[in-house]
């Protein structure tokens, strides 16, 4: 009984350590590589995938290319306000994409489509991190 209690406490400790570390990585690590990846995927993968699977929707696909390129431009510079703006726009596009795939019922066809939900979460995380950085910079 004592032994199983000890094991349970150890497992709980391990889970707590992993969750704390996960939170730290999520909150404080560099966000630029994620921003570049999200921007690249938005400029290339998003228009092609939505064109092939959802259909021709220039009102989403063409601005998505522009938004992806804008985010790449912002990351390549050093303006935090520009990066926050670009990240917000990217998040909006991924959220719209995720809703479109949900509306078309793709999530029940295969788990590969869940990648859009993951990209939406990733872009939200990236936006949150940069916004925090912006607040820190503005408040000294």
């Amino acid at each position: 009984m004592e032994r199983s209690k000890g094991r349970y406490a150890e497992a709980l400790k391990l889970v707590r350590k992993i969750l704390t570390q996960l939170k730290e990585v999520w909150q404080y690590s560099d966000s630029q590589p994620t921003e570049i990846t999200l921007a690249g995927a938005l400029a290339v993968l998003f228009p092609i995938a939505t064109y092939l699977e959802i259909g021709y929707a220039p009102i989403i696909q063409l601005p998505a290319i522009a938004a992806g390129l804008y985010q790449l431009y912002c990351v390549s510079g050093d303006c935090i306000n520009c990066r926050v703006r670009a990240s917000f726009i990217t998040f909006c596009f991924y959220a719209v994409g995720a809703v479109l795939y949900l509306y078309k019922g793709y999530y029940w066809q295969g788990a590969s489509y869940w990648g859009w939900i993951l990209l939406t979460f990733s872009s939200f995380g990236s936006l949150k991190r940069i916004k925090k950085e912006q607040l820190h910079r503005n408040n000294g």
Partner: protein
Amino acid sequence: MSKKGLKRAVEIFKYSDSEPNEVFTGLLHLAILPLALYTEMIKSPWLCLFSMAVGAFQLYAVLYNGSLKLRSNATKLAAVVAVATVLNYYIAGLLTGSRVGWLLVLIFAIWNVVRVDMQKHLS
């Protein structure tokens, strides 16, 4: 003066933290890839099991152990899984539309190998 444009992109990819991408790849290999293989390509149970094991190992290496040696091994294994995934999807003719995202995961996995190995050599 700080670098701009492409030079800055190269600098970011060389020297920024790779942990978020390692966590991302680990989670994908542990949960999403087995489900994707199960629903879209039922013929690869070994890849399913291997991917889950590698995903769990990568999460353990980056979130619990944290040593560069273990992280380096985990990123290499993750790259092998990512290559196998892309090859399987390509051979099955399924590497289209949203599934091209697996190619993105492969790029992530390769970048993780480069980044962690570079960090290992510097330390």
